[in-house]
């Protein structure tokens, strides 16, 4: 671990003022701290944003559910508002990591990191989320840019994530037995006029599976996917799963998600 200075920001303005290309915001620290300890990352300053009140909280208004960036997974999982509005998001949060991670890790941290196997990015894509930052609003379809890459600019701070409430939805994850991250995770969300199917774990970063969306938009049923064969090109292949297996899992989990949609 290389030495760094530690700051506790009282408000968003103070946090962004301290930020530069050599600094990092610290929320749950679930990725940042291990990376520093393993010498995979080094920063001049860590800006702790956990004390900023404006960045936390859960609020339903009309057809959207807004979650503050530093809201912990455990709080999302146990929130009555979330359970009532988007139950699948509550169970997604309940399935991240272990109790320690869920009581430290935050939604903003998860999407800012954009791990190829993380769960929340799939929720963002499936639920047409808008990412509110210190300087703008970014549609989730334009937010996730590549492996561990997002549209965030240097020093830009996520403030909240605003999800559209679907008619019904379901997230099904097939966890890696080692890391418990998703080998493949499929988030199916049915809106009045569209069906979104977001997939995590299967490519270098989260994506929407248009082949499945097209079929489900016409006929939202498990059996409608029976004759589909997904292409394996572009899918991850590693010691945990081949591209063939991942393609098979995407389809299998999508069917399961459709069958369990509420």
């Amino acid at each position, binding site marked *: *671990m*290389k030495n760094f200075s530690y700051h506790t920001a009282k408000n968003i303005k103070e946090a962004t003022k301290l930020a530069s290309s050599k600094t990092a915001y610290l929320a749950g620290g679930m990725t940042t701290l291990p990376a520093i300890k393993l*010498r995979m990352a080094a920063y001049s300053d860590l800006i702790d944003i956990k004390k900023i009140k404006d960045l936390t909280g859960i609020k339903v208004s009309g057809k959207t559910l807004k979650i503050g960036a530093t809201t912990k997974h455990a709080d999302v999982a146990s929130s009555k508002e979330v359970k009532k509005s988007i139950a699948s998001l509550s169970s997604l949060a309940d399935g991240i990591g272990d109790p320690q991670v869920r009581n430290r890790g935050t939604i903003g941290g998860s999407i800012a990191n954009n791990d190829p196997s993380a769960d929340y990015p799939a929720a963002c894509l499936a639920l047409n989320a808008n990412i509110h930052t210190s300087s703008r609003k970014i549609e989730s379809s334009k937010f996730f840019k590549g492996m561990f890459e997002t549209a965030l600019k240097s020093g830009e701070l996520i403030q909240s994530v605003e999800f559209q409430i679907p008619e019904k939805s379901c997230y099904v994850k*097939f966890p*890696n*037995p*080692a*890391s418990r*991250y998703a080998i493949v995770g499929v988030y199916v969300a049915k809106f009045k006029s569209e069906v979104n199917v977001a997939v995590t774990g299967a490519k270098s970063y989260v994506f929407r599976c248009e082949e499945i969306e097209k079929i489900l938009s016409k006929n939202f049923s498990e059996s409608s996917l029976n004759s589909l064969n997904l292409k394996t090109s572009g899918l991850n292949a590693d*010691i*945990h*799963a*081949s591209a063939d*297996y991942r393609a*098979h*899992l995407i389809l*299998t989990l999508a069917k399961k998600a459709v069958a369990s949609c509420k």
Partner: protein
Amino acid sequence: MASMIGSKVERKEDKKFLTGKGRYTADINFANQTYAYFVRSPHARAQIKSVDISKASKSKGVIKILTGEDLANDKIGGLIAGWKIVSQDGKDMKVPPHPPLAKDSVNYVGDHVAVVIAETLEQAKDAADLVNVNYKILKAVVNTSDAMKSEAIYEGIDQNLCFDFGLGDKGKAEEAFSKAEKVVSIDLVNNRLIPNAMEPRASIGDYNPSSEELTLYTTNQNPHLTRLVLSAFNGIAPEHKFRVVAPDVGGGFGSKIYPYAEDAVVAWAAKKIEKPVKWVAERTESFLSDCHGRDHITHAQLALQKDGKITGLKVETIANIGAYASLFATVTPTYLYAPLVLGLYNIPVAFCNVKAVFTNTAPVDAYRGAGRPEATYMIERLIEKAAKELGMDRAEFRVKNFINKFPHQQCLVHNIDSGDYSAHLNKALELSDYKNFEKRKSESASKGKLRGIGFSTYIEACGIAPSAVVMSIGAGVGLWESAEIRFNATGNVSVFTGAHSHGQGHDTTFAQIVSDKLGVALENIELIHGDTDKGPFGMGTYGSRSLAVGGTAIVKACDKIIDKGKKVAAKMLEAKPEEIDFKSGEFVVKNSNKKKTIGEIAFACYLPGQYGEIKSPLPEGVEPGLKETAFYDPINFSFPAGTHICEVEVDPNTGETKVVTYTAVDDFGTVINPMIVEGQVHGGVVQGIGQALYENAHYDKSGQLTTASYMDYAMPRADNFPEFKIAYTSTPATSNPLGVKGCGEAGAIAAPPAVINAVVDAINTEISMPATSEKVWDALQNKKSNREAA
């Protein structure tokens, strides 16, 4: 006092462990302490052209950087293989030199090249980045199956072959196969595992320049042997000036039986710089450089009569022992494996061939079960396959071939003293509700799941190692154990054992034995172990040996205490020693109410003054004090055995396999503390299921370990398991006075074949370990496409 044997006494040691007050090596700190960080090879195989430390030496806080050349200059010896194996052609095994810091070549990723010692760990790491090693990268030998066909890693070791060991009568075995009415064959891979003790390895060297004494604090299961090896072979310090302390140790599973390169280097460096040197492994270092386990490829054949009677067995195994021959690496796939291939069956003839090969991977050594899990996996998979091919019920087929008269001399090595294999099989069949399996299978089928049931009737040879038995098959030495019972004048007792507890609960179990024998309350008994300056020389804990061998030494020392106590009591009670009975802590004159407690006797032994009319309680020729030592070399191995039955459910859509019920009925002979034993069974079983379904050490073609963290190496977790059904049967061992057989490794030995037999039963096609979801799904796809093609 009620008997302590068989009592569920709560573990004495849990208070400190559960309240965070354990004192592990990493918790120990000294004034002026320095920090070591190892420069390790990033390559699986390379020549070292040069090591340039000039820039690193100038880095802030650096005290010393030591390399393989410094080590050679100081004439520090290499790490040794403890047992010599002789090949079938009569030639000795071949082993390469294993310097604690490499000088000319590196032979696996993680191999030690240099050590940087600095004032802080961060400074040591910063400087390590500046050590410039010029490597000439060579093509690595990685796979067990290719090793003998690949380029020789070491000069003079053709085919990368360490030895070609044979056990049994080859001619007779061939004859049995030529006459066989049926032959069943199987090809197996016993996957490589990484031990993953909860506490990573750590060592601290502390040298006292005034007394010239060197102390090594280290995470070790076997401190006396570690001192002996480091002293006699590495030349770190003479034994009488060298103390090895293994304080609280958080799990070992075999991986901490012996000294590692880091132990030798840290101790040597501390003496050199005359400052304490501390090293604590990071988890990645544990993955890379702790000795791994298993890694066998085996082809085995069973000769049978049509009626299901087994007439012969042939086994050919290639064992990957990694880049160097670690201390127990050569005994694990030979003495601890080959005699056990017979399982608990009456097999009249057998031959087992083991070829041990070197590869550019981490050294492979003993890991929970050491050789016996590999043997059991082989025979139990083969037995199950044979039963299916013969169309016989798997339980009936086993019973037909069980050894059923004891003692039984097996055709290879072991003379099995006791057992009742049908007893634990029947109990397990009942407990697992075997007769209603088909009903459960159709219930699973109605949910779209494939259900399978698998058996494992195992035997192990524990209580290692009776010198007479192991020397009869060529081993140079066996392994005994020591104990010392030291009464203090006030009547409480210090018990010293050469065994070492790193999770086994010896503090409690051994105290129960002493309490039972001497009638002293548990809270007045303290077990002391893990420090070469305190107790007598001992052989440590592994191979389920502590109770059968170390426990017996304790019993023998207790008997000596009682003998002496009787003499003293006789004098004090004005009787003859043969008139004294000892029971429940009291010396009583037969047919009288005249008695002395053992506490009174201890006091009298230490303060032998005037006792009423008696001038001294000590009879003539009896020395003061009450302290006795015993060394015990076992007369035979002990043979725990049992039946484990596993049921799995497979989701054919994803290949995901879940253990839905698990039954273990074990015969450990006498059980001292059933609660601790149950914990050992749980731990062993989850490790075994871990091997069967999740764990796998994987090297890529270039020799990089791709499973070097918990992100990629799948450890089993509590939510992977159902509640286990556990029961015991008991046929006490006749080879030790306690009748104990050993329990620590049973689960890890029994579980893998039980699980895989269940998976094979569910999917009706062969599968290798670990049976991951993808592998199971693949196997089902292949079966489907084969069927469609047909």
